[in-house]
């Protein structure tokens, strides 16, 4: 096996220089929980982001920025303000197990979007923004676009995710629901459903239902989401929307559960997540 070299850059600028110098021969790592499983296939240069000052939470008036090296365990409701922060904290708390939550990073979970990856669901449901930087560019990509194709297509050579931005909503302005099933605590989710709703004076102003673990990437269920728009909170027919969400989905096969079971469970989880979100708006 050819020898690889580890680099521990102390800033984003140093990281981007290294990426430029070793273009085509390097990989960046957050928690390295995916690379550790492929340890016999390491590229010549490994750039560890853990000392690059990318673990932070910055609160601006309209939005909050979370550094891409923030670990799942650090995404607590205390650390992340607003309804969006509580939503991200809730989803992060479901990811894997305690020791893994101390390792897995937000950037790694987003960049390597597996079928089961959970943070992408929350980012899609809130239409958060992914910030990317290379030596020559800074890009901001909305989650809907970011997760519409594989990350290897969207993240360019020499580029890293530096931070994720979500809008600041006060309690009552927005609410969420998150439901999932897995066979055991160490298993990957069999199915996850995230719902994020906003309202103004009792009328739904935006609504997103996202389903995970049914395809290679999370799926934004557009039609049932759209059916809630401009409706009064009390007029939402949860059963109808949940059934519609499940009916519209094409579910990939999974050795752990039949497609029929998953379809049925989408209805159940959707109903629960929608009920929680609507109850949150009504508070």
């Amino acid at each position, binding site marked *: 096996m050819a020898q690889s070299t580890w680099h521990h850059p102390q800033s984003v600028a140093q990281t981007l220089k290294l990426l430029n110098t070793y273009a085509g021969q390097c990989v960046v790592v957050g928690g390295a*929980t995916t690379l550790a499983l492929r340890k016999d296939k390491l590229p010549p240069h490994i750039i560890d982001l853990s000392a690059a000052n990318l673990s932070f939470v910055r609160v601006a008036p309209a939005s909050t920025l979370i550094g891409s090296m923030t670990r799942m365990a650090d995404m607590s409701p205390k650390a992340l303000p607003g309804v969006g922060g509580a939503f991200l904290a809730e989803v992060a708390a479901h990811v894997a197990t305690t*020791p893994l939550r101390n390792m897995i990073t937000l950037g790694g979970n987003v960049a390597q979007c597996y079928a089961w990856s959970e943070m992408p669901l929350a980012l899609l449901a809130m239409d958060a923004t992914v910030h990317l930087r290379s030596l020559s560019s800074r890009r901001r990509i909305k989650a809907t676009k970011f997760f519409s194709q594989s990350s290897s297509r969207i993240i360019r050579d020499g580029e890293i995710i530096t931070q994720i931005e979500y809008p600041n909503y006060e309690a009552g302005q927005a609410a969420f629901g998150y439901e999932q099933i897995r066979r055991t605590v160490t298993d990957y989710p069999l199915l996850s459903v995230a719902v994020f709703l906003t309202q103004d004076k009792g009328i739904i102003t935006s609504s997103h239902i996202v389903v995970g673990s049914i395809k290679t990437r999370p799926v934004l269920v557009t039609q049932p989401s759209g059916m809630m728009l401009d409706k009064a909170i009390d007029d939402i027919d949860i059963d109808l929307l949940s059934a519609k969400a499940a009916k519209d989905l094409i579910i990939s096969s999974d050795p752990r559960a039949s497609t029929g079971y998953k379809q049925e469970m989408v209805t159940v989880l959707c109903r629960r997540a929608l009920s929680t979100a609507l109850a949150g708006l009504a508070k």
Partner: protein
Amino acid sequence: MQVNMIINGEPKTLEAEAGDLLLDVLRRNGYKGAKKGCGHGTCGACTVLMDGRPILSCMTFAAQAEGHEIFTVEGLGSVNEPSEMQKIFVNNGAVQCGYCTPGMLLATKALLETNSDPTEEEIKRALDGNLCRCTGYVKIIKAIKEVAAAQKSH
């Protein structure tokens, strides 16, 4: 490659290859408390503390420990001089084959350092990454409650 880390309070420089996992490097250097169970992140037998937090050394490259503090079960006590926590585990029958025990002890240490009076639910959550193939959870949880009480009484 040389990796500098602090192990159980002592600065150490260990030899490692770029692809070496922390688990293998620790064991090669005599820290055999961390065990290889599944080797892919699901059992917790390889748990060590990095900067006070439980991590899986089978999913961590040795190179990632550069500059960090690592705490292994050897830092708690030895067969001849076990710590109070280890004694309480043994006295409660919380150790059967013992394969999961280093991970359980380290998860307990990390929990009690941030939460001195955990509820049963909090204990279960803190141990969610540590599997006991002998299924001795009831006694492990009982032991942890006793450790918490003993630490509070000091």
